[in-house]
């Protein structure tokens, strides 16, 4: 995987990220409705400069609507939106010069050749990246003279990315960039995205793949039914969602009936394995060890502490635990 080279700053030197540096994207109380149907009901989040921000959610949650409002393709019904300090609703051309957009499903002029198309796209922007560099990033060098209609699905998706990067954007939107990819293509695409992050680009990614979000995102927001259920760094999202930590160990053979496990642990025993699900793992472990030593149970065998994963949080918020 070729790495894009960092370039010297353009004529307006970017100020280094300071605490007061404005966010790349600010969204406040964003609402969107089509007629009577409300699609977004008060969405608020912020994307910091230089981070990979992931909008996660099931189909129909409002991910693409949100992103299309940020890209300037849809007019919002209400709320405030600032993208790189500008209102995308006004469709300023200066904003489009600084955005790279990979749309969800988007065709190409079929007879155009790969390098030719990238060349055309470079013409549209004031300070484009070199063609060879773009071809390398998406690994399409050997296909530069192939007509677009002859490319495979994965190759087209990578060409999508190359076109989005042609103008050397500050902010890149990727709407489900790896849907329909084979594992190898996904890994290549992920590497390209990580490569972009290393360059300091801000990336907004929508996906319904949890592993993709877990691997790439610095922070994420989980959308469901047009509102944000939880938003924050990937590691914290599960805790925010209120998903318990799971502690398991092999239930000792000899338990003195007079000394049952503390009730606050709500221990459940199944097939000789004791499981408790707790909010605060540290407190629970302390209780557990105090009880174990009081009962002279020795070390609890096969003790394991499993933190909630993004998947747990997702399933809790999306499938079951509405209204948590």
């Amino acid at each position, binding site marked *: 995987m070729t790495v894009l080279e960092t370039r010297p700053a353009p004529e307006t030197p970017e100020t280094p990220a300071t605490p007061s540096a404005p966010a790349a994207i600010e969204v406040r109380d964003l609402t969107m409705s089509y007629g009577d149907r409300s699609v977004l009901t008060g969405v608020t989040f912020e994307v910091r400069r230089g981070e990979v921000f992931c909008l996660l959610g099931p189909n129909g949650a409002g991910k693409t609507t949100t992103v299309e409002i940020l890209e300037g393709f849809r007019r919002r019904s209400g709320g405030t939106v600032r993208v790189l*300090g500008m209102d995308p609703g006004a469709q300023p051309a200066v904003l*489009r010069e600084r955005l790279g957009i990979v749309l969800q499903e988007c065709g190409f002029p079929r007879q155009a050749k790969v390098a030719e198309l990238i060349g055309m796209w470079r013409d549209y*922007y004031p300070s484009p990246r070199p063609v060879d560099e773009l071809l390398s990033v998406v690994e399409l060098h050997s296909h530069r003279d192939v007509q677009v209609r002859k490319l495979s699905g994965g190759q087209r998706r990578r060409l999508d990315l190359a076109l989005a990067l042609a103008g050397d954007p500050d902010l890149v939107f990727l709407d489900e960039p790896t849907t329909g990819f084979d594992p190898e293509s996904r890994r290549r695409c992920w590497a390209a995205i990580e490569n972009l992050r290393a360059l300091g680009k801000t990336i907004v990614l929508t996906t319904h793949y949890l592993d993709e979000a877990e691997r790439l995102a610095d922070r994420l927001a989980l959308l469901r039914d047009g509102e944000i259920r939880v938003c924050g760094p990937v590691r914290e999202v599960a805790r925010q969602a209120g998903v318990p930590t799971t502690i398991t160990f092999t239930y000792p053979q000899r338990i003195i009936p007079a000394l049952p496990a503390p009730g606050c642990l709500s221990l459940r025993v199944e097939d000789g394995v004791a499981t408790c699900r707790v909010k605060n793992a540290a407190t629970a472990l302390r209780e557990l060890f105090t009880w174990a030593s009081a009962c002279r149970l020795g070390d609890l065998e096969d003790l394991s502490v499993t933190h909630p994963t993004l998947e747990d949080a997702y399933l809790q918020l999306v499938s079951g635990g509405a209204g948590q």
Partner: protein
Amino acid sequence: MTAVLPGATAPRRRPVTRVARLAVRQGLAEQRTFWRSAEYALFTFALPVALLLLIGSTTAGGFLPHTHVKAQMIFVPSMMAFGVVVAAYVNLGTKLATLRHDGVLKRIRTTPIPAGAYLSGVLGSTAATTAAITAATGALGWLAFGAVPRVAGIGELAGGLALGAACFGSLGLVLSTLARSAESASPIANASYLPLAIMSGIFDPAFSVPHWLSVIVGLFPVRPLAQILQQGYTPVQHVPLEDPVVLAAWTVAGVFLAVWRFRWT
């Protein structure tokens, strides 16, 4: 919420030269891809050329009823008008409907290219194709049937082609907005121009229709264009003033409808 990133406030100049340069490059790119898709280019040319040769071989050499006008002097310019309709109206309309359906127009919209530059490039490319088709039709009409434009009629011929390309190009833009999908663009195109072309006598120099129908057909742009181009070959039929007026009126209506209805997605 008034915070603005560095460099974002400086108003960029968008000089006319940049738009013109982008339009020219877009037009050249469109032409390159048009000629690369051999079957598309071939059949765009084949329709007017094949009809010219097929129908011409049965009617050329004769005279129009009750006149001394050779049939090919009417028939060849009529086929040139037909070429304008096919290239500017049918091709442009179906092409844009396909580009919209495939999401290519939406993708273009993600870039900072000014809408005017992109559409000028596409329209310029259409104009070039139209010119090539009418030139091929005219050349073949001369080689096969000896139909040569008269020197005094060059003005009518050039003016008619320019006005016709503008008129049917703007209607092609409207056609692309009427078609809900790429598949429906072609049937809509054929259903709209083919009956009109037949009623306008494009395929038969001796074709005549009842007076009331003739009045109606005269209000649509196909026959006026054919009559102006015929004037470039033979002066026998006078060009009523209403022919260019009808074309101009349709052009204005087409431009208004296209501006009002055009969508990128």
